[in-house]
């Protein structure tokens, strides 16, 4: 008899502890958290409306972030440390700080669960509820806006042309007529070239590394895609140069599933604050300046309506 009683007591105690732990994470009231440290965290935690998605994330204790593992300088998983780094990743860390407060300031990655994505899996990852947001050089366009929501523009770039340093007869997109231009399959880059240089001959490969090789070997006269990707290629091969003006507009936004109440305005607020207080400029200097050589203080959104 006493042994059974002991078991019941043990079970009851375990249940009570579990209930307290769950309650501590779920309920906003700090009464169930007895220790001083926990109370301090609760105070430093931002308060959100109960219906909002950021409140749901705060309650869960983790934010699921879809990003790329191989896209320097925006999202990259360091093979040595296993840590993610890049412009997109640091923007996401700022979101985490805004949701989880003081505790996230020290180690934002503690509150992030990374979900690796590639171009084609970005929308399905959101619609299948495998991630709370996607930060992966995600160009906002009308076709995608039918399926998901986007934040305001947090980074803006456009398509340019990469040629060998010795090339002098390609200086703008119209010069690509009659030339062999390499670009990656499954991107908008191919369509942008086709639209503006009808007679360009397109060599379509899987990624930009073989395109660079084709350029080096003279099998392609030029490579064309978003300038930020070309920066990375110039870094790999200093015998190449970027020429011409932007001939497409690529506004990057944070992708969010359509039914997330209040989440997009919240993200927009954080992005605006980052631009206003200089955090955005610092991230640009940290990740983009080493490859581009220039400095910027904001994405310079040219008037896409902020939702």
């Amino acid at each position, binding site marked *: 008899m006493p042994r059974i009683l002991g078991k019941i007591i043990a079970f009851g105690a375990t249940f009570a502890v579990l209930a307290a732990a769950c309650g501590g994470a779920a309920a906003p009231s700090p009464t169930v958290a007895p220790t001083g440290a926990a109370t301090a965290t609760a105070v430093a935690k931002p308060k959100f409306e109960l219906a909002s998605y950021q409140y749901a994330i705060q309650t869960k204790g983790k934010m699921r972030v879809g990003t790329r593992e191989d896209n320097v300088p925006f999202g990259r998983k360091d093979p040595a440390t296993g840590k993610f780094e890049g412009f997109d990743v640091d923007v996401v860390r700022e979101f985490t700080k805004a949701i989880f407060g003081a505790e996230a300031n020290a180690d934002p990655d503690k509150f992030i669960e990374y979900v690796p994505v590639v171009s084609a899996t970005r929308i399905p990852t959101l619609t299948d509820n495998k991630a709370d947001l996607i930060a992966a050089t995600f160009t906002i366009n009308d076709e995608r806006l039918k399926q998901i929501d986007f934040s305001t523009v947090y980074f803006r770039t456009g398509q340019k042309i990469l040629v060998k340093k010795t090339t002098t007869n390609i200086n703008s997109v119209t010069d690509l007529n009659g030339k*062999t231009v390499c670009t990656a399959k499954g991107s908008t880059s191919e369509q942008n070239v086709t639209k503006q240089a009808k007679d360009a001959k397109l*060599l379509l490969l899987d990624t930009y590394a073989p395109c660079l090789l*084709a350029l080096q070997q003279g099998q*392609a006269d030029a490579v064309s895609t978003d300038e930020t990707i070309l920066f990375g290629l110039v870094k790999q091969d200093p015998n190449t140069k970027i020429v011409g003006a932007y001939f497409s507009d690529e506004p990057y936004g944070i992708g969010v599933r359509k039914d997330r109440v209040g989440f997009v305005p919240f993200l927009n607020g954080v992005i605006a604050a980052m631009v206003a207080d200089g955090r955005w400029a610092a991230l640009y200097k940290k990740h983009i300046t080493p490859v581009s050589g220039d400095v910027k203080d904001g994405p310079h959104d040219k008037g896409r309506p902020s939702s």
Partner: protein
Amino acid sequence: MPGGILLEFPELFFTGLWLTIQLSVLGFAGALAAGTAVALFRISPVPPLRWLGAAFVEFFRNTPLLVQLFFLFFGPIRFSGDTFENIFRAGAIGMAMYHGAYVAEVIRGGLIGIDKGQVEAARSLGLSYLQTLRHVQLPQTFRATIPPLGNIGIALIKNTSLASTIGVAELLQAAEIVESRTFRAEEAFGAAVLLYLLLTLPSSVGVNWLERRLLIAR
């Protein structure tokens, strides 16, 4: 309805299909020629030729076709000054070499399978080594190996899709371009499946017909 998208992008799909047909026909003709030559090397009485034949088979059979294509594309050899001619030729040569290794083994098997007595009879009738091959051994071999050669041919048609990775705008690449323009993946790749079946199913029927017409009953 997967067929509908074919009519929206007929130029992309049908020029892709035409390139796939060209790659398949040239590739298979090359594979038969290379394979037969290598098989003859492998059964030749001259040891260095046998080694050469074995080396060909082992090299092309034991490395991935994709890697061979990359090597033909990015390697030191150029097949033409024009980029698109170059990648097409690289694709066709890759198909011929890789499948040629399999053809060589099939044909060698067929040649070995012929009764030694026939060769001895031919030689004692005064036919030379080459005449014996030409008039006695090879005709029987080709007829006996139609089913496995048909297998290789159909595999080759499907494997031409790998040429899309070196930039050949064949059927798979056409489907990929349509997919990236429309975001309608099921339809674009569904159309590609239909067109591949349009090539492979008649090939199967053709192989069966040839088999019935020519196969020797043993």
